[in-house]
């Protein structure tokens, strides 16, 4: 065999081998980080190796990607009362608009693997600046008093408009809240009001309150300290006994021989706390535990590749600054709700501040301890102020909200998706700020990045004119009546 032939054969073997490996990695498994074509956005980086979640089998069309976006984000859009839902653009009369800007596809504005396009507005995703102009170029003609000579890229950067969520920015809302004072007389956050309603709903109640002597764990697993803390906890008060979590199948009589689970995991919590779990898995703390995601798939025969799930999120994997001491901590329910003190009193109070600050180390988080909000929280804990007076990390980032459960009952629960209320930050106006502050004060404060870094210690140096413009327009309309 000639030397040339040998080289050809070698080339063929290497090409086929490499091609086969990459194809198999793309479709099934292997180290897929080599296939990433660019850094993913902060919303997706934790799960970027679950390629199939967005790309299907790797050879799919735009619809597959669109459906993937909606499978995770559709509900958020519904909750935000999306101002530009896809259904608005289905009418054929919008065909010319869609030719300019395909508003039917999320990826038209929010593309992935292109870090150089990520918005500088702190949104954590790609976002063009000129999308409003394509349909609303006549706005200066329509509203000459207020919108004349405005820059085409200022609509969404000025603190006035968002594409999706305008629940706290729409004209009538601004008009109605124009005169609310910066500091309201009664300052109680929604959390408190909703907590009461949540208790009344009683959806998680499993039975009558249990006494210490009712604890049904086998003797070898019982001790006074554990029983005491369990008895003081909401679980005992709502009829949840030891075996409900430590031998769930036995408790539900689906298995006679289930052994004692020493540390019940997220699945056990989720068997009662369904909606909380759903939101936890949708946010950055829990998305890696979403059962539908995996780092690699199993091949059809389970021989070459095995399915590999993601490990729980750990602070060192985050892109925000995290405390070094927290590195290695896996995020599950117990990480924040604590069995850290080796007892059964699941903490709700510490989960609102201490748990967050045990990992988060960015400027905004650190500044919280010097903020007026923290002082109020301290006074609430000490009983110097009524319940609901304090503002915690959770008040803004994991608020108690009104949602519909799977049976369309209205329930009030803590939204464990920390991202749901985060960006654009005007989302927090209704769920948090307005409980205590006026709308002007809130909009101005949220528009000031320096004030946000200082965790609202001080006053905004920004003045957003939207409310004044609305009032100008309404008074003009009154005059012409």
């Amino acid at each position: 065999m000639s030397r040339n032939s040998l080289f050809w054969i070698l080339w063929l073997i290497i090409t086929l081998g490499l091609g086969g490996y990459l194809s198999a990695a793309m479709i099934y498994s292997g180290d897929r980080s080599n296939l990433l074509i660019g850094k993913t956005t902060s919303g997706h980086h934790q799960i970027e190796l679950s390629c199939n979640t967005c790309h299907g089998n790797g050879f799919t069309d735009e619809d597959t990607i669109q459906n993937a976006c909606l499978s995770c984000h559709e509900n958020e859009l519904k909750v935000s009362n999306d101002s530009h839902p896809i259904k608005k653009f289905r009418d054929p009369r919008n065909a010319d608009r869609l030719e300019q800007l395909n508003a039917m596809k999320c990826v038209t504005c929010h593309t992935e693997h292109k870090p150089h396009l990520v918005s500088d507005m702190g949104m954590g995703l790609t976002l063009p600046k000129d999308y409003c102009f394509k349909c609303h170029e006549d706005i200066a003609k329509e509203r000459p008093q207020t919108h004349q000579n405005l820059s085409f890229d200022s609509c969404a950067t000025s603190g006035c408009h968002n594409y999706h969520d305008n629940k706290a920015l729409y004209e009538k809302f601004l008009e109605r809240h124009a005169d609310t004072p910066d500091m309201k007389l009664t300052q109680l956050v929604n959390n408190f009001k909703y907590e009461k309603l949540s208790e009344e709903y009683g959806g998680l109640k499993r039975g009558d309150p249990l006494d210490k002597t009712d604890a049904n764990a086998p003797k070898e697993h019982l001790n006074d300290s554990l029983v005491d803390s369990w008895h003081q906890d909401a679980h005992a008060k709502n009829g949840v006994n030891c075996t409900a979590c430590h031998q769930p199948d036995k408790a539900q009589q689906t298995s006679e021989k289930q052994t004692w689970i020493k540390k019940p995991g997220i699945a056990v919590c989720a068997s009662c706390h369904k909606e909380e779990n759903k939101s936890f898995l949708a946010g950055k703390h829990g998305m890696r535990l979403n059962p539908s995601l995996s780092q690699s798939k199993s091949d059809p025969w389970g021989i070459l590749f095995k399915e590999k799930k993601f490990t729980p999120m750990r602070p060192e994997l985050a892109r925000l600054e995290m405390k070094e001491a927290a590195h290695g901590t896996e995020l599950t329910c117990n990480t924040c709700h604590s069995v850290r003190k080796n007892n059964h009193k699941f903490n709700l109070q510490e989960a609102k501040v201490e748990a967050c600050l045990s990992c988060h180390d960015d400027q905004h988080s650190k500044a919280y301890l010097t903020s007026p909000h923290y002082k109020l929280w301290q006074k609430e804990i000490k009983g110097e102020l009524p319940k609901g007076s304090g503002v915690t990390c959770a008040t803004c980032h994991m608020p108690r909200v009104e949602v519909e459960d799977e049976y369309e009952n209205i329930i009030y629960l803590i939204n464990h998706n920390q991202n749901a209320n985060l960006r654009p930050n005007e989302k927090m106006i209704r769920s948090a700020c307005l409980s205590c502050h006026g709308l002007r004060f809130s909009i101005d404060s949220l528009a000031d990045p320096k004030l946000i870094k200082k965790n609202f210690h001080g006053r905004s140096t920004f003045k957003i004119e939207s409310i004044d413009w609305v009032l100008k327009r309404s008074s003009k309309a009154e005059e012409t009546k």
Partner: protein
Amino acid sequence: MSNFKTTLKKFALTGIGAGLMLTMASTSQVNAKTFEPAQVTDMLHLVLASDREVYTKKVVKRLANKHKVIKASEFFEDDKALPLPAQMFRFGSETVADKTKDFSYSLISLWPINKQNAPKTDIEKKGLEFINANKGKNFYGEESLGGKKYFTAVYPDVAIATPCVGCHNNHKDTPKKDFKMGDVMGGVVIRIPL
């Protein structure tokens, strides 16, 4: 004789069979009747206009204006109120658009409160002008949108209840403040892809 009877029976049976087949054929002819696009849009419009009238009169006018037990508001979510008839109509149209591409409909006007509901295509403009100039008549035409051909029908949307006129005349964004009962306020556009 018996042969004759048998032949007669056979003849009769064949006759009955043929008759049945003819009847079936004529029945299937009825089933296979095709409709002109204009007939389809007329039927769709009849349903849409009737539902719109019922909602306006039996729900909004009765509960909000007559008995005053609930308000009707453009900001119905925040006000915990009834959606306005025009909003109700749009929600229906968007829900239909989510489910089928076989037809679509919208409500537009030469004097829209929301400027996005002004006529956009030539047919929409012609249609609205025609139904305003020819009271009680509909407009039919064809147009190409996004490379697809559509049969487009425009039907007059008439002020059938006092709240329609009141709201439109008093809204701060209205370009027309002198609507009267019975006026054509806008048009319902129904499209069928051809």
